[in-house]
């Protein structure tokens, strides 16, 4: 009997057997202008030589799994002979779902797992709960923690006490990596070069050049300076997928501060975009989304918790999700929460070594837990009792 851990995200599936390592695989299908007849599924994305104008077909909408046709095609590939070769009758699956997942989607998930794929047993759980499990294992004297999951679709802030999530404290900010990339595409398209169709390329630009500012208005001043004084400015060389396979930032010594470049490369000149884009995680109102940013929402969530728990939450803030990889993210969260928190409370913000795979690691740990057998719902259980048994056992 083996256990497959699948953190089923809207952008990436983090998947692996609990006794092996994790793989990070795109959770979707793709079409390319150059390979016109083929649809690429999940890891087949690597086969595309020219991802310009790449067309995305994703099973998730606004962070929830709505398109089962696409999801099943991805899972067929992941569970099949090219990848994990799952022997369903002999496999448990630990699979993640978003907070407050709709009951209709949960029911469909049960049907797909038990009636279609016929896993021997399943445990459905929020990714943040797996992160909390991992955190409490690493910090076993702590009673409370608050998990920030800032990923592709949105950002959730969730307090946990003694392993249980505190539903009243859950806060969702509707800013995620997808929105950041789309906004970057828009401003580049308006200011420099039409890139609205280039999600793949601009997402790479975002990951390569963007950072979180520690002093927003100071960076804004520096970004407006001319010539070499503008230490924020970067020139990014776009890939052409023949001689330049991957985009990159020109080193400062090679930048041309006075005139135009003589070479044939396509170059983006980025100044305030570098830090104004991730800033949306801290001030969604910058773009017109009337919601709190991450530090304010953290403090707000903690303030809604029982008073005796509050200092414990401030001491155990955990950052997960792809957006936390922006340079400066952790320090900025710390500085802002420290400024808003009561002075007598200790504030500690932890960024794990791999924030994208942290929930998966928690899933692996859970699968090795002696109580694991009691947490799952078996296929026999489901066939006898239906959705009811899943509603009772799983806390989504």
């Amino acid at each position, binding site marked *: 009997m083996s256990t497959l851990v699948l953190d089923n995200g809207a952008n990436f599936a983090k998947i692996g057997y609990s006794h092996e390592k994790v793989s990070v695989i795109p959770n979707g299908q793709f079409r390319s202008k150059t390979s016109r007849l083929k649809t690429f599924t999940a890891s087949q994305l690597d086969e595309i030589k020219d991802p310009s104008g790449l067309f995305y077909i994703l099973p998730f909408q606004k962070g*929830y799994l709505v398109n*089962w046709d696409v999801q099943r095609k991805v899972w067929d590939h992941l569970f099949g002979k090219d990848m994990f070769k799952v022997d369903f009758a002999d496999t448990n699956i630990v699979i993640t779902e978003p907070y407050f997942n*709709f009951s209709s989607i949960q029911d469909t998930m049960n049907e797909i797992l038990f009636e279609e794929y016929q896993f021997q047993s399943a445990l459905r759980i929020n990714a943040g709960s797996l992160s909390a499990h991992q955190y409490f294992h690493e910090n076993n004297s702590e009673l409370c923690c608050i998990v920030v999951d800032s990923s592709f679709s949105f950002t959730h802030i969730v307090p946990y006490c003694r392993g249980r999530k505190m539903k009243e404290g859950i806060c969702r900010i*509707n800013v995620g990596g997808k929105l950041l990339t789309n906004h970057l595409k828009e401003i580049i398209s308006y*200011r420099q070069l039409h890139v*609205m169709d280039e999600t793949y390329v601009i997402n790479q630009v975002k990951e390569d050049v963007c950072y979180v500012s520690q002093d927003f208005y100071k960076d804004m001043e520096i970004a407006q300076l001319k010539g070499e004084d503008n230490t924020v400015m970067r020139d990014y060389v776009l890939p052409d997928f023949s001689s330049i396979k991957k985009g990159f930032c020109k080193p400062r010594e090679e930048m041309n501060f006075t005139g135009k470049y003589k070479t044939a490369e396509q170059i983006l000149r980025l100044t305030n975009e570098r830090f104004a884009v991730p800033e949306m995680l801290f001030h969604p109102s910058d773009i017109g989304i009337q919601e709190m940013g991450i530090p304010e929402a953290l403090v707000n969530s903690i303030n809604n918790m029982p008073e005796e728990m509050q200092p414990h939450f401030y001491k155990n803030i955990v950052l997960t999700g792809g957006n936390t990889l922006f340079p400066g993210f952790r320090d900025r969260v710390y500085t802002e929460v420290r400024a808003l928190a009561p002075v007598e409370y200790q504030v500690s913000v932890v960024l794990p070594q791999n924030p994208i795979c942290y929930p998966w690691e928690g899933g692996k740990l859970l699968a090795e837990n002696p109580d694991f057998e009691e947490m799952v719902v078996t296929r026999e259980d489901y066939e006898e009792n239906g959705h009811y048994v899943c509603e009772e056992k799983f806390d989504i």
Partner: protein
Amino acid sequence: SCKFSCSSHSDDLSSSVRSQDPNQRRVLDSATRQRRLTRQLEALEKDNFQDDPHASLPQLVKRLPQFDESNESGKRRKKTRGDHFKQRFRKNFQTLLEEEDLSVSEGPNYLTACAEPSKFPQRHFCAVCGFPSNYTCVSCGARYCCVRCLGTHHETRCLKWTV
């Protein structure tokens, strides 16, 4: 005027704002401005801005099965792969949310979990160059930082694509 290297417009200032008769510029009301903002935010949720490359292919070609779509375990798939299930498996987010009927549920749910508005004042940035903005376009409400950016704004975006 723009002190530093606001590079998003040309050096030609002949399309000066002052030459336009203020009585002739249309002014959008706040409802229209709100609709515009909502549309911009919805556009940021899109997965793609271009069309599906397969959309223009003839139907016959699209029916060709991919090599890896072989029906190895055809038996167990009959339950959930019929046409009836297809409708249920393709509902969009808005439909699923409405079906959840959260207005009658008690306790925290998807809607109540949404973050509240910030207590901090909103910051404003020039719609053209992205630097901090002190001024608002009279016609459409877009922010700008200097006369040159306003000129660019009038030429390119102001009052275009208005619902």
